[in-house]
């Protein structure tokens, strides 16, 4: 029977993929994303952190793109291309981990707030709402400034300030799911809190969660770059710190457009890829949107 299950899963995935494939933008986002992630993962096979070492810069300072340095060099003669490549690891790592953190907090609190109707839910909701209205960038800025800007603290700062919208979404979904008659049926069958939360609510919010996490990664990457730009991040090379570098080293006034444009465009491309993917996932996976489209 398990093989049947497997075939079923495969078919379900096939159907999902068929739906997803129809979103051309989503697919192109996925492709960009896939390329970015794969490149980031295989980077250590080709280069190491050495490319971000100022001493090892081989080119001239702020040299325009050439055969040796296809995307030009930075203020220390390091190849912008290689730094972008290596820096993608930090940017993506921060994006993913911050989104993961925010998703975990958001999911747990969101489900709890939706599931427990009494004061537990009310208190969680209050706290969520409170966090929700905190201007998140400003709060992240303060947190990063206070905790010091290591990669871990940046992740925490972003994660801790961005979960409320996830929690809100999950709570709304939880409420929607719990209003469905099958919850009533499950209760009538004798189900408890844990059963309802894990068997019914979680699987039903999971797809949306996936979509919203994808969007969350996008905004985490942007936030990281903003924090880096505002100088609270003492990070290893990331796209944000590269932009900060280009700013500090006067790339703009020196006409080193490659140094400003490339990291920025990378951010835009990857963030957009995540966004497109997330939106496509949302339309494919969100039953409400799906029926609208039908």
């Amino acid at each position, binding site marked *: 029977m398990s093989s049947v299950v497997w075939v079923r899963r495969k078919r379900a995935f096939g159907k999902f993929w068929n739906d997803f494939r129809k979103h051309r933008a989503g697919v192109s986002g996925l492709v960009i994303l896939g390329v970015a992630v794969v490149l980031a993962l295989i980077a250590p096979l080709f280069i190491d952190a050495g490319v971000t070492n100022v001493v090892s810069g081989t080119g001239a300072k702020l040299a325009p793109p050439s055969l040796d340095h296809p995307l030009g060099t930075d203020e220390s003669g390091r190849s912008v291309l290689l730094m972008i490549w290596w820096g993608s690891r930090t940017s993506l790592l921060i994006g993913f981990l911050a989104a993961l953190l925010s998703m975990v907090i958001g999911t747990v609190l969101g489900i709890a707030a939706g599931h427990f109707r009494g004061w537990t839910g009310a208190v969680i909701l*209050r706290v969520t*709402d*409170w966090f*929700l*209205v*905190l*201007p*998140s*960038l*400003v*709060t992240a*800025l*303060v*947190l990063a*400034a*206070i*905790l*010091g800007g290591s990669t871990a603290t940046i992740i925490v700062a972003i994660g801790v300030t961005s979960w409320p919208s996830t929690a809100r979404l999950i709570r709304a979904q939880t409420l929607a799911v719990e209003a469905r008659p099958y919850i009533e049926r499950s209760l009538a069958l004798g189900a408890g809190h844990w059963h309802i939360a894990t068997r019914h609510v979680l699987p039903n919010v999971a797809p949306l969660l996936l979509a919203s996490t994808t969007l969350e990664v*996008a905004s985490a990457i*942007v936030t990281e*770059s*903003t924090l880096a*730009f*505002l*100088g*609270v991040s003492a990070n290893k090379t990331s796209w*944000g710190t590269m*932009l900060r570098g280009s*700013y500090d080293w006067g790339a*703009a*006034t020196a006409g080193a457009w490659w140094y*400003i444009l490339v990291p*920025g465009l990378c*951010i*835009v*491309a990857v*963030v*957009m890829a995540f*966004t*497109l993917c997330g*939106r496509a996932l949302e339309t494919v996976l969100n039953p409400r949107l799906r029926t*609208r489209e039908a």
Partner: protein
Amino acid sequence: MSSTVEELEQAPARHGLLRYAATKAGGALLSIAMVIVATFFLFRLLPGDPVRALAQGRNMTPEQLDLERARLGLDKPVPEQFLHFIGQTLRLDLGVSYEYKRPVLDLIGERIGSTLLLTGTALVIAVSLGLWQGARAGWKPGSRFDKISTAISLVLWSVPTFWLGLLLLMVFAAGIGPIPGIFPTRGSSSVDKPDGFAGVLDVGQHMVLPCLTLVAVVYAQYLLVMRSSVIDEVGQDYITTARAKGLRDDDVRRRHAVPNALLPTVTLVFMRIGFVVGGAVTVEAIFSWPGLGQLFYEAIRVPDFTLMQGTFLLITVSVIVMNTLADVVYHVLDPRVRSA
């Protein structure tokens, strides 16, 4: 039924709004209280000795440092400092800036105007443009207008504010190639700002780029939100009814779809104000706009303990207040919840 019955039925509704507003206000007060408490402890976590940081490498004797510490009330035990802080905050006294040696409230007061001008203008433009375009896009999803709008907003949404600001500065203030740098490089007005209308123009000219930056990023969100909100309405039966009545397509959209779609957006519009404020920090830094964001950023860089605390408090509290207002406004606007 007679009209007395109607009054009977409406009385509790009005009562309901008041009660709702009161509940919301209570909630907001609670939130503000939480912010105040959280702020205090958050800033006590700051590494380093604020007084030493203040000295900024200038040489100070231990006596001087003690003096300074006493002046800032940092020599007292934490609970006492806490009580003092609460009392002070409740008296709307945000303390004295370490760096500027002036009451934080004064410093904020001097800069809040320019921030309001910038963010207010940006918000008005972003909201009106975003909502208008979102409504049109959502009305005919898949149309060319929709595709272009969505594409633009997705790109803008993905662009880091500061980067966009820098690019705009480099292109339109510095000038590149054939593009003349017609916009100023800094500030909210010229040093020799003329009086009268010319002065208004001067400020306007200074505002173009920072405003554009803020608008670009924020409006995309409004557009997307409004778009999906309108798409939600398009399938509704009352829209079909309106069309069946013989209304023109535009009228159906304007009179039926948009007013309904606007309701859920109200809350989101306000919710995003926090985002505008966040964006203002970077935009003000890039365009040297003399506002709160810049003050806050400076406070973080110094770091100026009280100033950071005060601006953070103010920003947060104002966002909370705005959100509460939004809730109440929503309540007034939507007849369904109004009398519920």
